[in-house]
């Protein structure tokens, strides 16, 4: 009887600590990190907006066509996303998980499939799962499909097409490492 109550109290204490870690770390609000993906490499900054949402700003080197061998240099893009936390749970291991989804917008100077460099504008959706450790370091995996336009300015015309890389890369996972401060 004593051992089971001790065990239960230990579990409750671990769970409370994990939830406290989540809220303490997330409540501090700000994080910097990097996103790595077949689509490119980004530097990211995120900040808590409300108790259940945060916004994220990312500056990317678009490398999808470079890694495919279709271009020599990466493009650049800036992405803004407003993420809503769907579920925030603790674990007995000392870290916690956070699932989020949210809309965003993207703008940049990138290549597209079978297309040269042009202006990219579009809207995006981010959906991800984040693990925040007790060390204030978070690892997350997310996907971000983009629906946008790719505009190429040539000598005699302006060509605007659907940004195909945004749909082709919609399910390519992105791994993010962030540090909360």
């Amino acid at each position, binding site marked *: 009887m004593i051992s089971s109550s001790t065990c239960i109290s230990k579990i409750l204490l671990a769970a409370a600590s994990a939830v406290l870690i989540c809220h303490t770390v997330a409540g501090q609000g700000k994080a910097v990190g*990097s996103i*790595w993906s*077949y689509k490119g*490499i980004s530097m990211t900054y995120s900040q808590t907006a409300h108790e259940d949402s945060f916004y994220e700003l990312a500056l990317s080197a678009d*490398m999808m066509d*470079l*890694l495919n*061998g279709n271009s*020599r*240099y*990466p493009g650049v893009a800036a992405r803004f996303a407003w993420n809503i936390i769907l579920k925030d749970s603790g674990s007995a*291991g*000392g*870290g916690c998980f956070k699932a989020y989804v949210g809309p965003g917008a993207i703008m940049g100077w990138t290549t597209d499939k079978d297309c040269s460099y042009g202006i990219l504008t579009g809207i995006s959706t981010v959906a991800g799962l984040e693990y925040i*450790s*007790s*060390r204030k*370091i978070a*690892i997350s995996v997310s996907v971000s499909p983009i629906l946008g336009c790719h505009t190429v300015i040539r000598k005699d015309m302006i060509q605007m097409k659907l940004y195909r890389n945004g749909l082709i890369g919609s399910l390519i996972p992105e*791994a993010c*490492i962030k540090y909360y401060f």
Partner: protein
Amino acid sequence: MKQLSAIIILLTVISAASYGKDRAHITYGVEWGYIAFIQHGTHYNFYSPEGYRVDINNNRIKYRSNAEISFHTGYNFNTRWNLSIYIGYMGISDLHHAIPISIRATRSFCENRYGDKWFAFADLGSGFSITSRPQEILCCKLGAGYRISLSTKLKLDLKADARILYTHPELSYYNEPIPWDNVNRNNAYLSALSIGIGITF
């Protein structure tokens, strides 16, 4: 028959008892990174579509970007030394993709298994190029990094390395591909710097 059964049971018990102990020393994980190719040395010798022999010997500083991802599994011999096998997928400059397979020896500079620590590694391996006729590649890396223990089982590695690669790319001459049968030599030696992140369990 009874003696044989007893030996089999004894060996089974010993292996089961040591299974838990060995699992603590086994490591596995994933690593990815950005590669900046800075030096390209090439020696190509082939017959052109017009029929004459072309010999190109070149060595120049040329910056090209690419990336890699690897999966690894290994064994901790003690708190300092780890030996792992890495299998990955990488791009080699603007030449082609490849699947490198290598052995890495890592030395940690801390006795504490669960603490943060600096580490250095040497990696040597082969692999094959993803071309119409796959050929062997060679890769050698020397690097170092910092390991952050996120929990007793999860480690985050931040690493950087310098590497040299040797490969055999597909050739083209004035945008015309050269058939493999017309190629006498297609050697490329590349040097690169890389930064990456790894997750190890």
